[in-house]
Every structure is written in structure tokens, then in C-alpha cells.
């Protein structure tokens, strides 16, 4: 799992490249939370075009970050999720609380 973080105004763009499972979520969660706390972040975009694998651990990470920024009045967006990832997110009801976008620009425009 390679984590790449980008900041655009007060939005944190999180690129999750590779396999997101229980093992790799333990590695990235802290880095994501440190970035949210230290860089005055309000909104989050998960950019998933290079996500090769995800299981329910990914649901936990997304919902956990949603709860964190929701308290700050922020929102979360998901960009470029593949059909397999969408299926898991839909099962968990994630798209009832988080919007899905085709591009990062579109997501940024809605935040």
C-alpha cells in the first residue's frame, strides 16, 4: 500500500494505491489522521484509481475519517472507485453519507 497525500485549500486528497486490508490500514490510518490534524483540513477526497484490492477494512477507514471530519463540519468524497469497491461500499451503505465523483476536480468543486 502506497499512501500519497495532497492538500488543496482545506481539502485533503488521499491516494490509496495498492491493497487496502487490515494490515495496511494499520499503517496508513495514523498518517492520514496526522495530516488532518496538522494541516487544518476540513474535507477529504479518497482517490482510488490505483486501488488494487479492498476488503471491509477499507469501509472502517472511510467511515472513521468521515466521523472525524463530520465533527468539523466537513464532507468526504470518493473518486474513481472500481466496481468491486463500489459493491462493498454499497453493501455498507457508504454512499448514503458520502458522495461519489468521477474526477477529483468535480469532487473539489462540490466541497
Amino acid at each position, binding site marked *: 500500500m502506497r499512501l500519497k497525500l495532497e492538500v488543496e485549500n482545506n481539502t485533503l486528497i488521499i491516494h490509496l494505491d495498492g*491493497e487496502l*486490508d*487490515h*494490515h495496511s*490500514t*494499520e499503517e496508513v*490510518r495514523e498518517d492520514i489522521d496526522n495530516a488532518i490534524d496538522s494541516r487544518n483540513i476540513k474535507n477529504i477526497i479518497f482517490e482510488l484509481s490505483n486501488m488494487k*484490492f*479492498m*476488503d*471491509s*477494512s477499507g*469501509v*472502517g*477507514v472511510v*467511515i*472513521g475519517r468521515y466521523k472525524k471530519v463530520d465533527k468539523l463540519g466537513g464532507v468526504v468524497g470518493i473518486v474513481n472507485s472500481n466496481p*468491486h469497491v463500489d*459493491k*462493498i461500499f454499497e*453493501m*455498507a451503505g457508504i454512499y448514503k453519507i458520502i458522495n461519489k465523483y468521477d474526477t477529483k476536480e468535480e469532487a473539489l468543486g462540490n466541497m
Partner: protein
Amino acid sequence: MNFENYMKIEFLSKSQNESFARVAVASFVSQLDPTIEEMADIKTAVSEAVTNAIIHGYDKSNEKVVIECKIIGNTIMIIIEDFGNGIDDIELARQPLYTSKPELERSGMGFTVMETFMDEVFVESHKGIGTKIQMTKRIKVAENGE
């Protein structure tokens, strides 16, 4: 013998072995020529059961997880077993969004994912003895041309 092929692997309940377990099962299953989607379904279901053995089966110790796979015609049977805590109430555990570990950011979706991606999921568990998950999925035979 009621199966055409069989394999068994055993490893420590360390989170590093989650990806190993997925890859090992996937490469065994590849002899049935699954589609990319079927392969993703199987890898995800294996990941869920192995992760559960590691997180819920054993508390902090690293102990034994066993995976067995059988090929029966076009069906793959995967058995994932731990010898740890066991499940109190299996029916409750299988409910979508039920988790006993919300503080670890678990979402309670593991069993739901297994049930959605596999054809059948059986759970056998006894307090203090362990948990055994048996899942099967029939791989569709590719139609050539016509």
C-alpha cells in the same frame, strides 16, 4: 475421494499473512479459470475470514490459522479455521453492521461480504475452541465463441 484437487496451508495469525493467504488461495483457484470478477470475490472473502481469525480469533498472541481448499468439479471449497476465542452468538455475528470491536474501526461487514461474494457460507464455532468457516463458490464455465 470426492474432490479433484486439494491443498492445505498453515500460518501464524499475523496481519502480514493476510495478503499471503489471498494470493495462495487465488493461485490455487486459477486452475478453474475464474473471471477477474470471480477471482476478486474469492480473494475478498478469504481476506475477511483470515482477518477475522487474526483480529477476533486470537487476542494478541500469534497462533495457528489453517486454510484448506478443495476443487469439486467447478466448485471451489475454502475452509478457514482458527483455534481461538470462538463466537458467542453466530446469528448475531452474521448480522450486517454487527461488530464486537467498533473501537478498532471494524464495520461489521465481514460476514456480509463473504455471503455476498460466495455461494454458500457455513460457520461452525465453539467458545474457547475456535471457529471454522466453510465457503463454496461455483466457477462458471467459459463459453467459447458461438
